[in-house]
């Protein structure tokens, strides 16, 4: 019992250690696949899931912490994906440079949306961001010269520092690396002054303002962070999947990001990753494996989402609490004097 408590403290004090361990754990997947324990396809499925988790983390900062909704995540992610593909393939820019530009430009647009968010909120903001994303998607369709239109746009695995040409497995490691960094940064920011200010903005605008939180700058920060994360995800996507197709970046995808953070847990970093697994990976890795139910996997996925929300309205992450409680109940006889 005692040792368990001590362990808990380390993770609480230095969440980064937990995130790094988590990353290392994920990094075992390709090896497991090679050993034949997991399917090779899972490397792609999980790689994609982690990319979605990154974008969803950004949305979680926006909705979970700041209380601002966006249905535009997919649009920004797509913009970054197309930009990075174009910059590396057509303009032959180094991966790092294109990464930077492909994050910067969507972020600037995201900040503009942040300005709009000062005037409108709730559903109105949701639809406004949706409109931005729809305009972006239309642009992907019509500007065939840059985006390949409906033929889609291809890209390659990243080449780091002009030297290291990554392949599927190493790109997968790269995704984990980025994810872990983003988890650490998010945790640091959200558990400090910025996180409290965003929380305050969500909980009570009046209190936030009275305590000196400038709504304008904080909304812009929230939108900037969300767009940065979405763009990073977009860049990783296009260099992992090596392809971008206009209808990918649709409302459906943005809604999926929403589902991820609601299911995983608002304001929970691990929850976001968990949510991404539930929404993207579980249907493929489990639901579709159930005999006789393959064709119903879509239905089951919907049922799963609804059940999770009804039974875990604060996110599936709180299942940990329940499991611990159950565990304690089961071992109650021996260790009553806690």
């Amino acid at each position: 019992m005692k040792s368990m408590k001590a362990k808990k403290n380390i993770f609480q004090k230095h969440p980064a250690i937990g995130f790094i361990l988590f990353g290392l754990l994920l990094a075992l997947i390709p090896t497991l696949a090679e050993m034949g324990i997991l399917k090779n396809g899972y490397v792609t499925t999980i790689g994609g899931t982690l990319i979605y988790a990154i974008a969803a983390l950004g949305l979680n900062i926006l909705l979970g912490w700041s209380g601002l909704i966006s249905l535009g995540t997919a649009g920004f992610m797509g913009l970054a994906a197309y930009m990075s593909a174009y910059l590396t393939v057509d303009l032959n820019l180094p991966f790092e440079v294109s990464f930077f530009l492909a994050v910067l430009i969507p972020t600037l647009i995201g900040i503009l949306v942040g300005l709009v968010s000062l005037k409108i909120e709730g559903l109105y903001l949701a639809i406004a961001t949706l409109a931005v994303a729809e305009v972006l998607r239309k642009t992907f369709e019509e500007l065939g010269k840059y985006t390949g239109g409906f033929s889609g746009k291809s890209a390659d695995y990243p080449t780091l520092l002009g030297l290291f040409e990554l392949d599927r497995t190493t790109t997968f490691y790269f995704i984990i690396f980025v994810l872990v960094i983003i988890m650490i940064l998010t945790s640091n920011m959200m558990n400090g002054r910025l996180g409290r200010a965003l929380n305050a903005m969500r909980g009570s605008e009046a209190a936030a303002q009275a305590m000196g939180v400038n709504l304008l700058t904080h909304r812009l920060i929230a939108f900037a962070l969300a767009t940065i994360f979405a763009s990073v995800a977009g860049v990783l996507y296009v260099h992992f999947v090596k392809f971008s197709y206009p209808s990918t970046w649709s409302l459906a995808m943005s809604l999926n990001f929403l589902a991820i953070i609601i299911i995983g847990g608002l304001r929970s970093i691990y929850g976001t990753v968990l949510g991404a697994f539930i929404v993207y990976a579980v249907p493929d890795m489990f639901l579709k494996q159930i005999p006789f139910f393959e064709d119903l996997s879509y239905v089951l996925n919907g049922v799963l989402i609804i059940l999770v929300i009804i039974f875990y309205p604060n996110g599936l992450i709180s299942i940990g609490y329940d499991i611990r409680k159950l565990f304690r109940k089961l071992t109650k006889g021996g260790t009553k004097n806690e």
Partner: protein
Amino acid sequence: MSTFIQIILRSLETGSIYALAALGIIIIYRTSYTTNFAQGVVAMFNTFVVTFLFNKFGLPLWLAVIGGILSAILTGFLIDVLILRHTKNVSPVAKQIITLGLIMIVLGLAPIFFGVDPLRLPRLIESGDLGVLGASISYNGLFNIALGLAIMTGMFYILQRTKWGLAIRTTASNEYVARLMGVPTKNVTMAAWGVAGVLGVIAGVMTAPMTSVTLNLMDEVQITALVACVLGGFQTFHGPVIGAYIMGIVRNLLLFYVSSVWGGQILYILILIFIVFRPYGLIGKKIVKKV
């Protein structure tokens, strides 16, 4: 000139479809405080029911439509009783995600029930055109417009003038206190889901003859209706209806006179600019927040 009128007339016809769909979204929003993204697919499902009753069981169209209305009420009730009733501790955003789950369920089940072929559903009034200043509008189109307006007026009356309206508004404002006042909020939300279902299937039956009955039947209608709600403001019932007609008309004018490629997007941008300047929509009032 006649072209212009023609465009307006056709737009009014689709506008009334958008309006009905928007009313369906609003009534759920006003009672369950959630945006029902599944309004469209549920409507699609029930339109399939109508089509099946008509095509496979050979019922007369009007009877098939009544059958569809009954099934719409039933699906609405089921959604409320099986799902939304158990969401006491669920936040409004999470309820929206529940409607996403619903979309998946309906999209997954529809092909199993109705097969995968697109089906045909004829118009309620098969033929006849009315000439207006060199343009024409079908009797069916006129009927759609009239029905849309009638339903809207009826709902407006109920909401503002009757006890049911008060029940709806208190439920929307604060369900928990409403129950304290003796408002049967469960019945209110259940009825709202039923009504939303009916509005949806009527919109679906109006849409189907223009295209064919497929899984995507209501996709565009759904998005347009959502945007119309924002344009008109969520606070009233007539705002979204006006928003819906505006969407129908302006989109077609932009598509025709400006660009068939970019017209839809220009409309979105215009609406974006509009709501930045009128954050509560066309009709909604701005309320000063008091602390």
